[in-house]
């Protein structure tokens, strides 16, 4: 039986303690969880969040048990691959083949609430972001192909920002916007 590390009340503490070596623990945890979710979305999108939690839990328990981990993120990837293998085996046993599921018959938000409602909610949320953020979102996520790259590079130059920093800012704004629209649509659906 492996001895747990003294002073670590839970496996979660062990994980945070380990992550705190490189950066603020909470930030490191969020970053790692996001990468795990991205990894699982590429394989089993429907279960991505749950599988990410499973992988994190296993990683945390290994750390609490005293397993020597040289590179936390790489180790997490190894755990994730095992979790993925188990999930796929489980699916195969349950005869949930990874065929093209197409569109499910469950009505999606657009069919249920209408694009018009979403546009209205989006308009209100864009207003809440403010003029500058609104302009950035509309300019950043507009065009396609080569023009898209040019516009983003130009935006970065105009702002005196690196492309990476601008990308992160645009992603945060988009997440904020989507969260706002989701919240508004939830409110609407309560009345329909």
């Amino acid at each position, binding site marked *: 039986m492996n001895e747990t590390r003294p002073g670590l009340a839970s496996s979660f503490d062990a994980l945070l303690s380990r992550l705190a070596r490189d950066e603020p623990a909470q930030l490191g945890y969020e970053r790692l969880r996001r*990468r795990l979710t991205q990894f699982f979305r590429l394989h089993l999108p429907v279960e991505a969040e749950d599988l990410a939690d499973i992988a994190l839990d296993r990683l945390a328990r290994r750390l609490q048990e005293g397993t020597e981990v040289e590179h936390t993120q*790489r180790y997490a990837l190894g755990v994730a691959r095992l979790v993925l293998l188990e999930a796929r085996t489980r699916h195969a046993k349950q005869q949930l083949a990874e065929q093209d599921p197409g569109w499910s018959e469950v009505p999606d938000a657009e069919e249920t609430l209408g694009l018009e409602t979403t546009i*209205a909610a989006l308009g209100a949320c864009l207003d809440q972001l403010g*003029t500058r953020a609104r*302009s950035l979102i509309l300019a950043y*996520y*507009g065009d396609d192909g080569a023009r898209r790259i040019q516009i983003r590079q130009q935006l970065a130059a105009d702002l005196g920002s690196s492309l*990476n920093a601008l990308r992160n800012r645009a*992603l945060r704004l988009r997440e904020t*916007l989507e969260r706002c629209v989701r919240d508004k649509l939830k409110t609407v659906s309560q009345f329909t």
Partner: protein
Amino acid sequence: MTIPVDTTLRRWLLHRLPEAEVAALETRLFDDDATEDGSFAASLREAELDLIDDYAQGRLDADERRDVERHLLQTGEDRLQLTIARALAQVRSNAPVRERHAGTSKHASASPSPRRRGTRWKYGAAGGAMAAGLALVVLVLAGIQPRKPPAPTDAVATAPAVIQSVALLASTQRGAAELEITLEHGTTALRLQAEVARPQTGTRYVLRVGDAGRTVFVADDLSLHQSGPYAYVEAVIPAALFGAGVRQVSLQAQADTEPGFVWQVHTRKAD
């Protein structure tokens, strides 16, 4: 370390890369240096959003569309994100040009928010106010207050949305079928239900409304509905856009270049 080019990330997301390359990219995803603020992970996320935006705006070919549906649009959350992407494209197309292409540089003209009329439709100024009224009604019912409510009449602002259904049957189609409809008093929108004579599972359809050769409304990416023996697609169009007079309603499969069915719809308002 350089970020893989956008095309590589797209191919990864569409599951078109060889396994060895996938394994290397996955390792890279977890090696992403924290001091770079997760550049690689952020690039991957951006590539995914760009694909969804391209899908929403009909920029992908059939194979790409299929792969996006298969790998990126499987959950309800994913499809809600797609709806938001479509809404964003619509709002962007209605925004002033300078706002569409402006950054947030202090050198750019500080464009105020475009006048808030709720939802503006690019298909006609008349439809804009009516659609805004419809959107406002929904928001008022939900208790959500837009910051600058549009200026429809009081009657429109408080009246419930009234949607009139119009059935377009394939059996009446004789090259260009004709039918007459009467817009009832208070109708704010028409729900066009167009029968698909030879439905094919997985096919998406486009419904267009034309006025003397000019397209006034398009609804694309429509899925099939089933009601007994009838397969149909449906779209809601503001009544003000449809208007009174003669309209051509055409239906075609998304991949086709020519309409499959055309109806001539004579519309008049109730006395």
